Protein backbone atom coordinates (compact mmCIF):
# COMPACT_ATOMS: atom_id res chain seq x y z
CA UNK A 1 0.00 0.00 0.00
CA UNK A 2 1.50 3.35 -1.01
CA UNK A 3 1.75 5.99 1.69
CA UNK A 4 0.50 9.46 0.78
CA UNK A 5 1.82 12.42 2.71
CA UNK A 6 -0.10 15.70 2.57
CA UNK A 7 1.85 18.75 3.66
CA UNK A 8 -0.30 21.75 4.54
CA UNK A 9 0.58 25.31 3.53
CA UNK A 10 1.84 25.84 7.08
CA UNK A 11 4.04 22.74 6.93
CA UNK A 12 2.13 20.20 9.03
CA UNK A 13 2.20 16.67 7.61
CA UNK A 14 -0.56 14.05 7.46
CA UNK A 15 0.34 10.60 6.17
CA UNK A 16 -2.32 8.08 5.20
CA UNK A 17 -2.21 4.63 3.63
CA UNK A 18 -3.59 4.72 0.10
CA UNK A 19 -4.58 2.05 -2.39
CA UNK A 20 -3.08 1.65 -5.85
CA UNK A 21 -5.67 2.80 -8.38
CA UNK A 22 -7.26 5.42 -6.09
CA UNK A 23 -6.57 9.08 -6.68
CA UNK A 24 -4.62 11.37 -4.35
CA UNK A 25 -7.85 13.39 -3.96
CA UNK A 26 -10.03 10.40 -3.01
CA UNK A 27 -7.46 9.22 -0.52
CA UNK A 28 -7.44 12.64 1.16
CA UNK A 29 -11.21 13.08 1.25
CA UNK A 30 -12.02 9.60 2.55
CA UNK A 31 -9.60 10.09 5.39
CA UNK A 32 -10.72 13.62 6.16
CA UNK A 33 -7.36 15.22 5.31
CA UNK A 34 -7.87 19.01 5.34
CA UNK A 35 -6.72 21.20 2.47
CA UNK A 36 -8.49 19.39 -0.39
CA UNK A 37 -12.12 20.30 -1.06
CA UNK A 38 -13.01 18.37 -4.25
CA UNK A 39 -16.58 19.64 -4.61
CA UNK A 40 -17.15 17.82 -7.89
CA UNK A 41 -15.93 14.48 -6.59
CA UNK A 42 -13.23 14.09 -9.22
CA UNK A 43 -15.00 14.92 -12.47
CA UNK A 44 -12.63 17.75 -13.41
CA UNK A 45 -15.30 20.39 -12.91
CA UNK A 46 -14.32 22.51 -9.92
CA UNK A 47 -10.52 22.99 -9.54
CA UNK A 48 -10.75 22.66 -5.73
CA UNK A 49 -8.34 19.74 -5.28
CA UNK A 50 -5.22 21.64 -6.33
CA UNK A 51 -1.90 20.30 -5.00
CA UNK A 52 1.79 20.93 -5.54
CA UNK A 53 3.58 17.68 -6.27
CA UNK A 54 6.90 17.18 -4.47
CA UNK A 55 9.94 16.54 -6.65
CA UNK A 56 10.34 12.89 -5.63
CA UNK A 57 6.75 11.96 -6.61
CA UNK A 58 5.95 10.90 -10.17
CA UNK A 59 2.57 10.78 -11.94
CA UNK A 60 1.24 10.42 -15.47
CA UNK A 61 1.40 13.64 -17.51
CA UNK A 62 -1.65 15.91 -17.47
CA UNK A 63 -4.38 16.13 -20.10
CA UNK A 64 -5.53 19.35 -21.73
CA UNK A 65 -8.63 19.84 -19.58
CA UNK A 66 -6.67 19.56 -16.35
CA UNK A 67 -4.17 22.04 -17.74
CA UNK A 68 -7.02 24.47 -18.50
CA UNK A 69 -8.66 24.04 -15.11
CA UNK A 70 -5.35 24.71 -13.34
CA UNK A 71 -5.49 28.25 -14.73
CA UNK A 72 -8.55 28.79 -12.55
CA UNK A 73 -7.38 27.60 -9.13
CA UNK A 74 -7.89 29.84 -6.08
CA UNK A 75 -4.12 29.98 -5.45
CA UNK A 76 -2.18 30.56 -8.68
CA UNK A 77 -0.58 27.56 -10.29
CA UNK A 78 3.11 26.69 -10.13
CA UNK A 79 5.12 24.44 -12.45
CA UNK A 80 4.44 21.49 -10.09
CA UNK A 81 0.69 22.14 -9.78
CA UNK A 82 -1.76 19.31 -10.43
CA UNK A 83 -5.39 18.56 -9.71
CA UNK A 84 -5.20 15.68 -7.27
CA UNK A 85 -8.29 13.97 -8.68
CA UNK A 86 -6.19 13.22 -11.76
CA UNK A 87 -3.25 11.72 -9.82
CA UNK A 88 -3.58 7.95 -9.65
CA UNK A 89 -1.63 6.11 -6.96
CA UNK A 90 0.63 3.26 -7.99
CA UNK A 91 2.93 1.38 -5.62
CA UNK A 92 5.29 4.25 -4.83
CA UNK A 93 4.94 6.55 -1.82
CA UNK A 94 3.79 10.05 -2.67
CA UNK A 95 4.21 13.53 -1.18
CA UNK A 96 2.13 16.58 -2.09
CA UNK A 97 1.66 20.05 -0.62
CA UNK A 98 -1.80 21.60 -0.37
CA UNK A 99 -2.37 25.31 -1.06
CA UNK A 100 -3.58 27.84 1.54
CA UNK A 101 -7.09 27.74 0.12
CA UNK A 102 -9.09 25.95 -2.59
CA UNK A 103 -12.05 28.31 -2.99
Amino acid at each position, binding site marked *: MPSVTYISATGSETAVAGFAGDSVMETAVRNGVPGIVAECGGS*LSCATCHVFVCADSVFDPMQELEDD*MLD*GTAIDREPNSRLSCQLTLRDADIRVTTPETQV
Partner: protein
Amino acid sequence: MRIGTLIIGACQAGVQLACSLRELGDTEPIVLVGEEPHAPYQRPPLSKAFLKGQATADSLTFRTHEFYAEHRIELVTRERIVSIKRDSTGGVATAESGRRFEFARLALTTGAVPRQIPFDGSELEGVSYLRTATDAALLEQRLQTAQNVVVVGGGFIGLEVAAGARAAGKTVTVLEAAPRLVGRAVSEATSAFYLAAHRRRGTRVVLNAQVTRFLGQHDRVTGVELASGDVIEADVVLIGVGVIARTELAEQLGLAVDNGIVVDASARCSDGLTVAAGDCANLPNPSLTPGGIERLRLESVQNAIEQAKVAAATLLGLPAEYSTVPWFWSDQADLKLQIAGLSGGHDQVVLRGDPESEKFSVLYYRAGWLIAADCVNRPLDFIAVRALLHSGQHLPAAQAGDLSLPLKKLVASALETAPAVPVLLGK
Protein backbone atom coordinates in the same frame (compact mmCIF):
# COMPACT_ATOMS: atom_id res chain seq x y z
CA MET B 1 -28.19 6.92 25.36
CA ARG B 2 -29.49 10.27 24.25
CA ILE B 3 -27.92 11.56 21.05
CA GLY B 4 -26.59 15.11 20.86
CA THR B 5 -27.48 15.52 17.21
CA LEU B 6 -29.54 13.09 15.16
CA ILE B 7 -29.07 13.56 11.41
CA ILE B 8 -31.70 11.81 9.30
CA GLY B 9 -30.38 11.09 5.82
CA ALA B 10 -26.94 9.52 5.31
CA CYS B 11 -26.07 11.45 2.16
CA GLN B 12 -23.80 14.25 0.95
CA ALA B 13 -25.50 16.85 3.15
CA GLY B 14 -25.77 14.52 6.14
CA VAL B 15 -22.09 13.59 6.08
CA GLN B 16 -21.05 17.22 5.71
CA LEU B 17 -23.29 18.26 8.59
CA ALA B 18 -21.75 15.62 10.87
CA CYS B 19 -18.20 16.55 9.85
CA SER B 20 -18.90 20.26 10.28
CA LEU B 21 -20.30 19.73 13.78
CA ARG B 22 -17.01 18.10 14.76
CA GLU B 23 -14.94 20.78 13.03
CA LEU B 24 -16.87 23.41 14.98
CA GLY B 25 -15.94 21.68 18.23
CA ASP B 26 -19.13 19.77 19.04
CA THR B 27 -18.22 16.87 21.34
CA GLU B 28 -21.68 15.37 21.90
CA PRO B 29 -22.74 12.09 20.30
CA ILE B 30 -23.70 12.34 16.63
CA VAL B 31 -25.80 9.70 14.88
CA LEU B 32 -26.18 9.73 11.11
CA VAL B 33 -29.00 7.43 10.10
CA GLY B 34 -29.91 6.33 6.58
CA GLU B 35 -32.09 3.69 4.99
CA GLU B 36 -29.69 2.51 2.32
CA PRO B 37 -27.43 -0.51 2.88
CA HIS B 38 -24.28 1.41 1.90
CA ALA B 39 -22.10 3.86 3.74
CA PRO B 40 -22.81 7.35 2.32
CA TYR B 41 -21.48 7.77 -1.21
CA GLN B 42 -21.36 10.26 -4.08
CA ARG B 43 -24.46 10.23 -6.25
CA PRO B 44 -23.37 12.19 -9.37
CA PRO B 45 -21.26 9.34 -10.80
CA LEU B 46 -24.27 6.97 -10.68
CA SER B 47 -25.50 8.26 -14.04
CA LYS B 48 -21.97 8.37 -15.49
CA ALA B 49 -18.96 6.26 -14.39
CA PHE B 50 -21.09 3.77 -12.44
CA LEU B 51 -23.03 2.67 -15.51
CA LYS B 52 -19.77 2.09 -17.37
CA GLY B 53 -18.63 -0.25 -14.62
CA GLN B 54 -15.96 2.24 -13.52
CA ALA B 55 -17.38 2.83 -10.04
CA THR B 56 -19.21 0.99 -7.26
CA ALA B 57 -20.98 2.09 -4.09
CA ASP B 58 -17.75 1.14 -2.29
CA SER B 59 -15.45 3.16 -4.53
CA LEU B 60 -17.76 6.18 -4.19
CA THR B 61 -17.92 6.30 -0.39
CA PHE B 62 -17.22 9.73 1.09
CA ARG B 63 -15.34 8.62 4.19
CA THR B 64 -13.77 5.46 5.54
CA HIS B 65 -15.32 3.62 8.48
CA GLU B 66 -12.15 4.54 10.39
CA PHE B 67 -12.91 8.20 9.79
CA TYR B 68 -16.40 7.90 11.25
CA ALA B 69 -15.07 5.96 14.24
CA GLU B 70 -12.24 8.40 14.86
CA HIS B 71 -14.62 11.38 14.75
CA ARG B 72 -17.22 9.54 16.84
CA ILE B 73 -19.88 9.83 14.17
CA GLU B 74 -22.12 6.79 14.53
CA LEU B 75 -23.28 5.70 11.10
CA VAL B 76 -26.52 3.69 11.12
CA THR B 77 -27.51 2.13 7.79
CA ARG B 78 -30.66 0.24 6.76
CA GLU B 79 -32.92 2.11 9.17
CA ARG B 80 -35.83 4.10 7.81
CA ILE B 81 -37.22 6.63 10.25
CA VAL B 82 -40.99 6.53 10.04
CA SER B 83 -42.15 8.61 12.97
CA ILE B 84 -40.79 11.51 14.88
CA LYS B 85 -41.80 13.76 17.75
CA ARG B 86 -40.04 16.68 19.32
CA ASP B 87 -40.38 19.68 21.60
CA SER B 88 -37.97 22.48 22.43
CA THR B 89 -35.72 20.21 24.52
CA GLY B 90 -35.41 17.33 22.07
CA GLY B 91 -37.40 14.36 20.91
CA VAL B 92 -37.47 10.82 19.63
CA ALA B 93 -37.39 9.31 16.17
CA THR B 94 -38.53 5.74 15.54
CA ALA B 95 -37.42 3.53 12.69
CA GLU B 96 -39.54 1.04 10.80
CA SER B 97 -37.70 -1.72 12.71
CA GLY B 98 -38.88 -0.21 15.99
CA ARG B 99 -35.43 1.12 16.91
CA ARG B 100 -35.69 4.44 18.76
CA PHE B 101 -33.33 7.39 18.60
CA GLU B 102 -33.64 9.94 21.39
CA PHE B 103 -32.06 13.24 20.48
CA ALA B 104 -31.40 16.72 21.76
CA ARG B 105 -30.94 18.33 18.32
CA LEU B 106 -32.32 17.29 14.95
CA ALA B 107 -31.19 17.76 11.35
CA LEU B 108 -33.17 16.63 8.31
CA THR B 109 -31.13 15.76 5.22
CA THR B 110 -33.79 13.52 3.79
CA GLY B 111 -33.09 14.24 0.11
CA ALA B 112 -35.54 13.53 -2.65
CA VAL B 113 -37.08 10.66 -4.57
CA PRO B 114 -37.58 10.36 -8.32
CA ARG B 115 -40.92 11.64 -9.52
CA GLN B 116 -42.95 8.60 -10.60
CA ILE B 117 -45.23 8.61 -13.57
CA PRO B 118 -48.20 6.29 -13.24
CA PHE B 119 -48.46 5.03 -16.79
CA ASP B 120 -49.92 1.66 -17.54
CA GLY B 121 -47.04 -0.74 -17.65
CA SER B 122 -44.85 1.10 -15.10
CA GLU B 123 -44.53 -2.14 -13.15
CA LEU B 124 -42.98 -4.03 -16.07
CA GLU B 125 -39.50 -5.48 -15.61
CA GLY B 126 -37.03 -3.11 -17.26
CA VAL B 127 -38.76 0.15 -16.32
CA SER B 128 -36.15 1.93 -14.19
CA TYR B 129 -35.55 4.97 -12.02
CA LEU B 130 -32.16 6.26 -10.90
CA ARG B 131 -31.40 7.78 -7.53
CA THR B 132 -29.49 5.29 -5.39
CA ALA B 133 -26.54 2.96 -5.89
CA THR B 134 -29.01 0.07 -5.75
CA ASP B 135 -30.98 1.65 -8.60
CA ALA B 136 -27.76 2.19 -10.54
CA ALA B 137 -26.61 -1.40 -10.08
CA LEU B 138 -29.94 -2.68 -11.39
CA LEU B 139 -29.87 -0.29 -14.33
CA GLU B 140 -26.29 -1.23 -15.17
CA GLN B 141 -27.24 -4.90 -15.18
CA ARG B 142 -30.26 -4.24 -17.40
CA LEU B 143 -28.23 -2.13 -19.82
CA GLN B 144 -25.67 -4.88 -20.29
CA THR B 145 -28.09 -7.07 -22.22
CA ALA B 146 -30.25 -4.32 -23.73
CA GLN B 147 -30.10 -3.12 -27.30
CA ASN B 148 -32.98 -0.63 -27.32
CA VAL B 149 -32.89 1.97 -24.58
CA VAL B 150 -35.61 4.57 -24.11
CA VAL B 151 -35.12 7.50 -21.76
CA VAL B 152 -38.25 9.33 -20.63
CA GLY B 153 -37.22 12.88 -19.69
CA GLY B 154 -34.59 15.03 -21.37
CA GLY B 155 -33.00 16.45 -18.23
CA PHE B 156 -29.45 15.97 -16.93
CA ILE B 157 -29.90 12.44 -15.58
CA GLY B 158 -31.69 11.21 -18.67
CA LEU B 159 -29.21 12.74 -21.08
CA GLU B 160 -26.21 11.49 -19.14
CA VAL B 161 -27.55 7.95 -19.20
CA ALA B 162 -28.54 8.30 -22.85
CA ALA B 163 -25.06 9.50 -23.82
CA GLY B 164 -23.43 6.59 -21.98
CA ALA B 165 -25.74 4.00 -23.53
CA ARG B 166 -25.24 5.46 -26.98
CA ALA B 167 -21.46 5.42 -26.57
CA ALA B 168 -21.79 1.73 -25.65
CA GLY B 169 -23.46 1.10 -29.00
CA LYS B 170 -27.11 0.92 -27.93
CA THR B 171 -30.02 2.26 -29.93
CA VAL B 172 -31.14 5.16 -27.76
CA THR B 173 -34.28 7.29 -27.85
CA VAL B 174 -34.91 10.26 -25.55
CA LEU B 175 -38.54 11.31 -25.10
CA GLU B 176 -39.05 14.82 -23.77
CA ALA B 177 -42.52 16.19 -23.05
CA ALA B 178 -41.46 19.83 -23.38
CA PRO B 179 -40.49 21.61 -26.61
CA ARG B 180 -36.81 21.59 -25.57
CA LEU B 181 -34.23 19.65 -23.56
CA VAL B 182 -33.14 20.52 -19.99
CA GLY B 183 -35.78 23.26 -19.89
CA ARG B 184 -35.57 23.70 -16.12
CA ALA B 185 -31.86 24.46 -16.02
CA VAL B 186 -30.62 26.10 -19.21
CA SER B 187 -31.73 28.60 -21.84
CA GLU B 188 -32.96 27.92 -25.34
CA ALA B 189 -29.51 28.37 -26.88
CA THR B 190 -28.00 25.66 -24.67
CA SER B 191 -31.04 23.40 -25.15
CA ALA B 192 -30.73 23.69 -28.93
CA PHE B 193 -27.06 22.81 -28.74
CA TYR B 194 -27.70 19.66 -26.70
CA LEU B 195 -30.44 18.58 -29.06
CA ALA B 196 -28.07 18.85 -32.02
CA ALA B 197 -25.14 17.32 -30.15
CA HIS B 198 -27.06 14.21 -29.03
CA ARG B 199 -28.51 13.75 -32.51
CA ARG B 200 -25.01 14.06 -34.02
CA ARG B 201 -23.93 11.20 -31.77
CA GLY B 202 -26.74 9.03 -33.03
CA THR B 203 -29.31 9.39 -30.26
CA ARG B 204 -32.89 9.85 -31.40
CA VAL B 205 -34.55 12.73 -29.53
CA VAL B 206 -38.30 13.29 -29.70
CA LEU B 207 -39.53 16.63 -28.32
CA ASN B 208 -43.16 17.31 -27.32
CA ALA B 209 -43.41 13.57 -26.79
CA GLN B 210 -46.49 12.41 -24.94
CA VAL B 211 -46.00 8.97 -23.48
CA THR B 212 -49.27 7.09 -23.08
CA ARG B 213 -48.15 3.70 -21.76
CA PHE B 214 -45.43 1.10 -21.58
CA LEU B 215 -45.98 -2.10 -23.49
CA GLY B 216 -44.72 -5.49 -22.41
CA GLN B 217 -44.65 -9.21 -22.94
CA HIS B 218 -44.27 -11.80 -20.18
CA ASP B 219 -43.99 -8.99 -17.63
CA ARG B 220 -41.00 -7.44 -19.45
CA VAL B 221 -41.11 -4.03 -21.10
CA THR B 222 -40.91 -4.17 -24.88
CA GLY B 223 -41.90 -0.68 -25.96
CA VAL B 224 -43.13 2.81 -25.19
CA GLU B 225 -46.31 4.04 -26.83
CA LEU B 226 -46.74 7.72 -27.66
CA ALA B 227 -49.98 9.69 -28.08
CA SER B 228 -49.11 9.93 -31.78
CA GLY B 229 -49.59 6.18 -31.94
CA ASP B 230 -45.89 5.51 -32.51
CA VAL B 231 -44.37 2.69 -30.53
CA ILE B 232 -40.66 2.81 -29.72
CA GLU B 233 -39.04 -0.52 -29.08
CA ALA B 234 -37.46 -0.78 -25.64
CA ASP B 235 -35.58 -3.40 -23.61
CA VAL B 236 -34.88 -0.86 -20.89
CA VAL B 237 -36.75 2.32 -20.02
CA LEU B 238 -35.21 4.92 -17.72
CA ILE B 239 -37.60 7.49 -16.30
CA GLY B 240 -35.81 10.70 -15.32
CA VAL B 241 -38.46 13.38 -14.87
CA GLY B 242 -37.22 15.20 -11.81
CA VAL B 243 -37.42 14.54 -8.09
CA ILE B 244 -39.76 15.29 -5.23
CA ALA B 245 -38.32 16.47 -1.92
CA ARG B 246 -38.86 14.06 0.96
CA THR B 247 -40.87 16.01 3.47
CA GLU B 248 -42.93 13.34 5.29
CA LEU B 249 -41.00 13.66 8.56
CA ALA B 250 -41.05 17.45 8.41
CA GLU B 251 -44.81 17.29 7.96
CA GLN B 252 -45.14 15.02 11.00
CA LEU B 253 -43.30 17.66 12.99
CA GLY B 254 -45.68 20.31 11.72
CA LEU B 255 -42.91 22.19 9.90
CA ALA B 256 -43.72 24.49 7.00
CA VAL B 257 -43.41 22.60 3.71
CA ASP B 258 -43.72 24.10 0.25
CA ASN B 259 -41.86 22.25 -2.52
CA GLY B 260 -39.41 21.12 0.13
CA ILE B 261 -38.87 21.83 3.80
CA VAL B 262 -39.02 25.59 4.21
CA VAL B 263 -35.82 26.94 5.83
CA ASP B 264 -34.36 30.39 6.42
CA ALA B 265 -30.89 31.55 5.38
CA SER B 266 -29.50 29.83 8.48
CA ALA B 267 -31.03 26.48 7.39
CA ARG B 268 -33.52 26.70 10.27
CA CYS B 269 -37.00 25.20 9.82
CA SER B 270 -40.23 26.95 10.79
CA ASP B 271 -40.11 25.58 14.38
CA GLY B 272 -36.90 27.56 14.96
CA LEU B 273 -35.22 24.38 16.28
CA THR B 274 -34.82 21.78 13.55
CA VAL B 275 -32.45 22.37 10.62
CA ALA B 276 -32.70 21.00 7.08
CA ALA B 277 -30.19 20.97 4.23
CA GLY B 278 -29.64 19.63 0.74
CA ASP B 279 -32.14 18.53 -1.90
CA CYS B 280 -34.99 18.40 0.65
CA ALA B 281 -34.80 22.08 1.62
CA ASN B 282 -36.63 25.02 0.13
CA LEU B 283 -34.34 27.95 0.83
CA PRO B 284 -34.02 31.67 0.23
CA ASN B 285 -32.03 32.20 -2.99
CA PRO B 286 -28.42 32.34 -1.76
CA SER B 287 -27.40 34.71 -4.57
CA LEU B 288 -30.52 36.85 -4.76
CA THR B 289 -30.38 39.82 -7.07
CA PRO B 290 -33.28 42.11 -7.92
CA GLY B 291 -35.53 40.31 -10.37
CA GLY B 292 -34.27 36.89 -9.31
CA ILE B 293 -36.37 34.09 -7.87
CA GLU B 294 -36.76 34.49 -4.10
CA ARG B 295 -37.01 30.90 -2.90
CA LEU B 296 -36.01 27.63 -4.52
CA ARG B 297 -34.71 24.14 -4.03
CA LEU B 298 -31.19 23.53 -5.25
CA GLU B 299 -30.32 20.00 -6.30
CA SER B 300 -26.55 20.09 -6.33
CA VAL B 301 -23.49 18.80 -4.53
CA GLN B 302 -22.34 22.33 -3.78
CA ASN B 303 -25.66 23.21 -2.14
CA ALA B 304 -25.66 20.03 -0.06
CA ILE B 305 -22.18 20.86 1.24
CA GLU B 306 -22.52 24.59 1.79
CA GLN B 307 -25.98 24.53 3.29
CA ALA B 308 -25.02 21.66 5.59
CA LYS B 309 -22.10 23.72 6.92
CA VAL B 310 -24.52 26.55 7.74
CA ALA B 311 -26.96 24.10 9.34
CA ALA B 312 -24.22 22.69 11.58
CA ALA B 313 -23.29 26.18 12.81
CA THR B 314 -26.96 27.00 13.44
CA LEU B 315 -27.44 23.84 15.54
CA LEU B 316 -24.54 24.93 17.73
CA GLY B 317 -25.98 28.42 18.15
CA LEU B 318 -23.30 30.05 15.99
CA PRO B 319 -24.32 32.80 13.58
CA ALA B 320 -24.25 31.63 9.97
CA GLU B 321 -26.05 32.69 6.82
CA TYR B 322 -25.95 30.95 3.50
CA SER B 323 -24.73 33.03 0.59
CA THR B 324 -23.07 31.56 -2.46
CA VAL B 325 -23.06 31.46 -6.23
CA PRO B 326 -24.81 28.20 -7.13
CA TRP B 327 -23.01 26.00 -9.59
CA PHE B 328 -23.82 22.75 -11.37
CA TRP B 329 -22.22 20.37 -13.78
CA SER B 330 -23.27 17.65 -16.18
CA ASP B 331 -21.05 15.30 -18.19
CA GLN B 332 -22.70 13.94 -21.33
CA ALA B 333 -20.48 11.96 -23.68
CA ASP B 334 -17.41 14.18 -24.21
CA LEU B 335 -19.38 17.35 -23.40
CA LYS B 336 -18.65 18.99 -20.07
CA LEU B 337 -21.33 21.46 -19.07
CA GLN B 338 -20.58 23.74 -16.14
CA ILE B 339 -23.17 26.25 -15.00
CA ALA B 340 -22.39 29.20 -12.73
CA GLY B 341 -25.20 31.28 -11.25
CA LEU B 342 -28.96 31.14 -11.83
CA SER B 343 -30.07 32.36 -15.24
CA GLY B 344 -33.80 32.82 -14.43
CA GLY B 345 -35.09 36.27 -15.36
CA HIS B 346 -32.29 37.09 -17.83
CA ASP B 347 -33.07 39.72 -20.46
CA GLN B 348 -29.96 39.39 -22.62
CA VAL B 349 -27.87 36.47 -23.84
CA VAL B 350 -24.30 36.69 -25.17
CA LEU B 351 -22.82 33.76 -27.05
CA ARG B 352 -19.10 33.23 -26.56
CA GLY B 353 -17.71 30.79 -29.13
CA ASP B 354 -19.45 28.76 -31.80
CA PRO B 355 -21.80 25.97 -30.59
CA GLU B 356 -20.88 24.02 -33.76
CA SER B 357 -17.34 23.74 -32.38
CA GLU B 358 -18.78 22.16 -29.19
CA LYS B 359 -16.73 24.65 -27.17
CA PHE B 360 -18.78 27.70 -26.20
CA SER B 361 -20.42 29.58 -23.37
CA VAL B 362 -23.79 31.27 -23.04
CA LEU B 363 -23.63 34.32 -20.78
CA TYR B 364 -26.84 35.61 -19.21
CA TYR B 365 -27.41 39.26 -18.34
CA ARG B 366 -30.15 41.07 -16.47
CA ALA B 367 -30.33 44.88 -16.58
CA GLY B 368 -26.80 44.95 -17.97
CA TRP B 369 -25.25 42.75 -15.28
CA LEU B 370 -23.96 39.24 -15.77
CA ILE B 371 -26.00 36.78 -13.67
CA ALA B 372 -25.04 33.33 -14.96
CA ALA B 373 -23.29 31.30 -17.64
CA ASP B 374 -23.62 27.85 -19.22
CA CYS B 375 -20.13 26.75 -20.30
CA VAL B 376 -19.69 23.77 -22.63
CA ASN B 377 -16.11 22.48 -22.77
CA ARG B 378 -14.90 25.94 -21.70
CA PRO B 379 -13.80 25.43 -18.10
CA LEU B 380 -11.88 28.69 -18.00
CA ASP B 381 -14.99 30.70 -18.83
CA PHE B 382 -16.79 28.88 -16.04
CA ILE B 383 -14.12 29.59 -13.48
CA ALA B 384 -13.90 33.26 -14.52
CA VAL B 385 -17.69 33.75 -14.34
CA ARG B 386 -17.92 32.02 -11.00
CA ALA B 387 -15.20 34.23 -9.55
CA LEU B 388 -16.81 37.31 -11.04
CA LEU B 389 -20.24 36.53 -9.61
CA HIS B 390 -18.64 35.99 -6.20
CA SER B 391 -16.85 39.30 -6.28
CA GLY B 392 -19.76 41.28 -7.80
CA GLN B 393 -17.53 42.73 -10.53
CA HIS B 394 -18.89 43.81 -13.88
CA LEU B 395 -18.33 42.16 -17.25
CA PRO B 396 -19.59 44.31 -20.12
CA ALA B 397 -21.86 42.38 -22.47
CA ALA B 398 -20.43 44.18 -25.48
CA GLN B 399 -17.03 42.51 -25.08
CA ALA B 400 -18.01 39.23 -23.45
CA GLY B 401 -18.40 37.43 -26.76
CA ASP B 402 -14.89 38.26 -27.98
CA LEU B 403 -13.00 34.97 -27.92
CA SER B 404 -9.65 36.69 -28.40
CA LEU B 405 -9.98 38.13 -24.91
CA PRO B 406 -9.90 35.75 -21.91
CA LEU B 407 -12.82 36.52 -19.56
CA LYS B 408 -10.37 36.92 -16.70
CA LYS B 409 -8.85 39.94 -18.48
CA LEU B 410 -12.21 41.50 -19.30
CA VAL B 411 -13.23 41.35 -15.67
CA ALA B 412 -10.11 43.09 -14.49
CA SER B 413 -10.61 46.05 -16.82
CA ALA B 414 -14.39 46.33 -16.58
CA LEU B 415 -15.08 48.44 -13.52
CA GLU B 416 -15.36 51.86 -15.17
CA THR B 417 -17.98 50.64 -17.65
CA ALA B 418 -20.41 49.24 -15.08
CA PRO B 419 -24.11 50.14 -15.45
CA ALA B 420 -25.21 53.00 -13.20
CA VAL B 421 -27.39 50.92 -10.90
CA PRO B 422 -25.47 48.00 -9.43
CA VAL B 423 -28.02 45.24 -9.68
CA LEU B 424 -25.66 42.48 -8.73
CA LEU B 425 -25.19 42.11 -5.01
CA GLY B 426 -21.81 40.46 -4.67
CA LYS B 427 -20.95 38.20 -1.80
